[in-house]
């Protein structure tokens, strides 16, 4: 912007216009932070943000999810001329809904979230859907349109919302309100944006598919601009245990967090504050901690906020991160559970073998995390040159930046030969990391940093499941060998039996062998062959039955 110069002379500090930029302006300017760097990626990111909010509104609230996704191409309108097509993206869910009073903020104010608590949800920044709103108003000039109704409510509300970026406040352009005739509850969000379906297509379809893999308890319908419908029916009613809200762990708080805690706490002493506001801190450990670092246990916490005590506050935070408290609790994590992973992999890939584990909780820098790994092998899986890696963090599929991800590094470094896997092999490895704070590499939540604690835990998990796979493949190889042997020998039994019957009669008393004479030899040979073959998991009788079945199936032409 051209700025008018007043007078001649040098420009002084007084001439400079100082003003802070709102976070909304920031996001609008730097779209790539939120994953909207180009039309294809923006379309993908829009679907993601809406779907993840829908899932947060259902499965973390013990609601079996029903999610409808649609992308429609629509004509460009107004004076905007350009080549890029427009799309209306709609995502509907049967979740908890958004109360009327919160609607404008939730969709129109950046950094407004219900998820700023310590528990594992997909959303964590309070940014996702607002980035969509901003992108829509920038590219098509349209507001975001939300219909929502909460469980007990008599009404369905509709609002069209945009964001006043200079003030980071919602502007509600239109409101509607209807009495509920049917029991509908949930949220339906529609947004008109510029996009590139052709380029985004495969990633979006894969995103929905991968979401469905780990949510076999969800019913998902996806309508594409090409008129295709992807339907993933619910195959189980078992859902992961929803996360519980937790207090912060002393290792996990920074200076800002601590200020916030001190400000809000009703505690009258430092000791009381430690016990009531943090997890993993008891009477004893609080006392030990305070005396070790020389804090007065009876000091009023608010004192720490005084300007003069800034140094003390910093010291306090450092001490918190150093002292050996009990490790963080993990019941505010919500792992998928081995059963759901197995079910999901089975449903999507129809493998011959599948196994999954949920590792015990661990922590890094005061943030608890759980690693889960599932491996599927064989069956309908297409053999590839390397394992097909399915990455998830807090139940979100991660599709981009695979090679930068810690899981990729681990899976790649494993010598699969040691586990009897010879590539090309039909092998799928699913890695899920659940944490109250997933160390993403960016706001787009696409890859996870190489945190040592995570890396070693992922390795342990993959190896643990791979060891079971190894046993399975070894057994299968042995079994196949035995089966091959049964087959190879059984098919010759009729010819050999006939030949023996033929040769068994002395020339002086020879007559063509009767069927029952041949049968005697055949049965004997079946006995002999069966007694020499051991197939794991089969008793002698079953083996004999198989050998006989093959021998009986022989027809000589």
């Amino acid at each position, binding site marked *: 912007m051209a700025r008018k110069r007043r007078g001649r002379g040098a420009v002084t500090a007084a001439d400079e216009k100082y003003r802070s930029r709102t976070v909304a302006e920031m996001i609008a300017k730097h779209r790539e932070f939120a994953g909207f760097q180009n039309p294809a990626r923006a379309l993908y990111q829009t679907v993601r943000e809406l779907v993840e909010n829908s899932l947060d509104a259902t499965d973390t609230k013990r609601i079996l999810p029903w999610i409808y996704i649609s992308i429609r191409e629509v004509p460009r309108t107004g004076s905007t001329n350009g080549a890029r097509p427009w799309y209306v993206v709609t995502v509907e869910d049967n979740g908890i809904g958004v109360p009327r009073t919160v609607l404008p903020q939730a969709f129109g104010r950046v950094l407004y979230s219900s998820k700023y608590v310590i528990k594992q949800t997909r959303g964590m920044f309070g940014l996702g859907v607002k980035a969509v709103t901003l992108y829509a108003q920038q590219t098509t000039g349209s507001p975001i349109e939300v219909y929502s109704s909460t469980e007990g409510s008599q009404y369905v509300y509709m609002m069209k919302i945009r964001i006043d970026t200079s003030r980071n406040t919602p502007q509600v352009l239109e409101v509607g309100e209807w009495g509920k005739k049917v029991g509908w509850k949930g949220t339906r969000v529609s947004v008109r944006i510029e996009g590139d379906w052709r380029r985004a297509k495969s990633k979006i379809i894969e995103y929905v598919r991968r979401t469905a893999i780990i949510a076999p308890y969800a019913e998902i319908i996806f309508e594409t601009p090409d008129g295709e419908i992807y339907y993933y029916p619910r195959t189980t009613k078992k859902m992961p245990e929803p996360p519980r809200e937790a207090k912060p762990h002393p290792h996990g708080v920074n200076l800002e967090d601590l200020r916030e805690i001190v400000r809000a706490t009703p505690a009258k002493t430092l000791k009381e504050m430690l016990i009531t506001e943090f997890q993993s801190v008891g009477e004893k450990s609080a006392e030990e901690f305070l005396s070790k670092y020389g804090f007065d246990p009876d000091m009023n916490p608010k004192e720490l906020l005084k300007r003069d005590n800034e140094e003390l506050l910093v010291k306090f935070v450092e001490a918190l991160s150093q002292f050996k408290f009990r490790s963080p609790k993990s019941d505010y994590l919500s792992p998928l559970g081995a059963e759901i992973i197995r079910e999901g992999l089975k449903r999507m890939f129809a493998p011959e073998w599948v196994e999954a584990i949920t590792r015990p909780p661990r922590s890094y820098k005061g943030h608890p995390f759980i690693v889960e790994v599932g491996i599927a092998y064989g069956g309908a899986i297409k053999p590839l040159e390397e394992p097909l890696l399915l990455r998830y963090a807090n139940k979100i599929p991660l599709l981009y930046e695979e090679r930068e991800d810690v899981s990729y590094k681990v899976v790649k470094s494993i010598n699969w030969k040691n586990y009897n896997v010879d590539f090309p092999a039909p092998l799928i490895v699913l890695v899920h990391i659940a944490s109250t704070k997933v160390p993403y590499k960016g706001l787009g939540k696409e890859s996870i940093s190489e945190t040592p604690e995570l890396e070693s835990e992922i390795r342990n998990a993959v190896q643990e499941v791979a060891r079971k796979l190894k046993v399975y493949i070894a057994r299968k190889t042995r079994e196949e060998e035995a*089966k*091959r*042997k*049964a*087959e*190879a*020998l*059984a*098919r*010759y039994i*009729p*010819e*050999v039996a*006939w*030949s*023996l019957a*033929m*040769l*068994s*009669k*002395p*020339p002086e008393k*020879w007559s063509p062998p009767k069927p029952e004479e041949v049968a*005697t*030899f055949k049965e*004997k*040979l079946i*006995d*002999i*062959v069966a*007694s*020499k073959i051991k197939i794991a998991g089969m008793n002698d009788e079953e083996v004999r039955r*198989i050998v006989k*079945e*093959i021998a009986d*199936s*022989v*027809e*000589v*032409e």
Partner: protein
Amino acid sequence: MSGGHEPFVDEVDLKARLKAARIMHEKFSPLIKAVLDGKPPKLVIPKRTLANTVFDPERGILSLGEEVLEREFLDLGESRRFMQTLLMAAIIYQSLIENEYPTIRDLYYKGKHTIVYRDMRGRRREENTWDEQKESDSVIQDVEVYTGLFREDMLILSKEKGKVVGNMRIRSGGDVIDLSKLGHGAYAIESTADLIEILDVDAEFVLVVEKDAVFQQLHRAGFWRRYKSILITGSGQPDRATRRFVRRLHDEHGLPVYVITDSDPYGWYIYFVYKVGSINLSYESERLATPKARFLGVQMSDVFGYGSKKPYLSEAERKKFIIKATDRDIKRAKELLKNYPWIYKNRLWKREIELFLKRKVKLEIEAIASKGIRFFAFKYIPEKIETGDWIE
């Protein structure tokens, strides 16, 4: 055709069949018993590999060594061959009993079945008992070594290649045949040479010639009448019956055997087949080889002379008849010299081959014959026999 005739019965064949069938039945009895006792069946067969082929210098023949292979039905690598061996034995046995005269080709067809079965996944699969005749021929050899019976003993016929004329009478299939009264023709040596009954022989030696054409020439020239002899040809590489017949004349009637072939590695090899046996089928030598057979010619020294021996060909004739040896001939000759003890340990043979390698030329029998059949029949051959100019 009008009826009333008794069906023709060949008593000789009948006896031979019964004998072979008995042996087969006997040989397979332990195997049959094992199966009925629920024991894994196996065939113990002498190995027919080159490594298990040994030269017995005492008897001067090739034979199979001590090595045996155990062909177990339950051994995946052997089960197919086991099935094939039994199947072949059974068909042969059946043919013997049912008075059939199969050829090896007939046996191939008779035993060539398609085994159709369902595998463990229920898929339909097919496998032939054998695919090519090579496969079934090799199985026949297994049956031969396993039973100790030759295919001829089992009344398996093959194309007749050998011919014989001379002063002798034989009985074949009940008929008496005078081999001196066959006109321009000759008696085709039947596949089952052991079923020929040799009634009487009035001859001093046996002359075996490699080539049928030379045989005819000598026959028409009256060679065997003038020099009381039995004239035989195997028409190139001799079949088993011819070799067996030659052997019998030598063994049963004490006749010396002289062999005339081309003077080249191929001709020498034919001589050695008569004498020692074929390297691939060493198990036959026991009954087919004639270790005392003598190589009469054509020798290198017949062409070039050696020491005091004068050549049979003049300088000009030589130029006309000798042929340059090919690289293959040379290679083959070197192999003979290197690999076979009965050659490199024989001074005269070593000399013969080294002379060949030096001169790098070869000579066909026809070369000498074309100098005039009479020269060949009445000078060359008798003179060499008389002077002992042969290699043994």
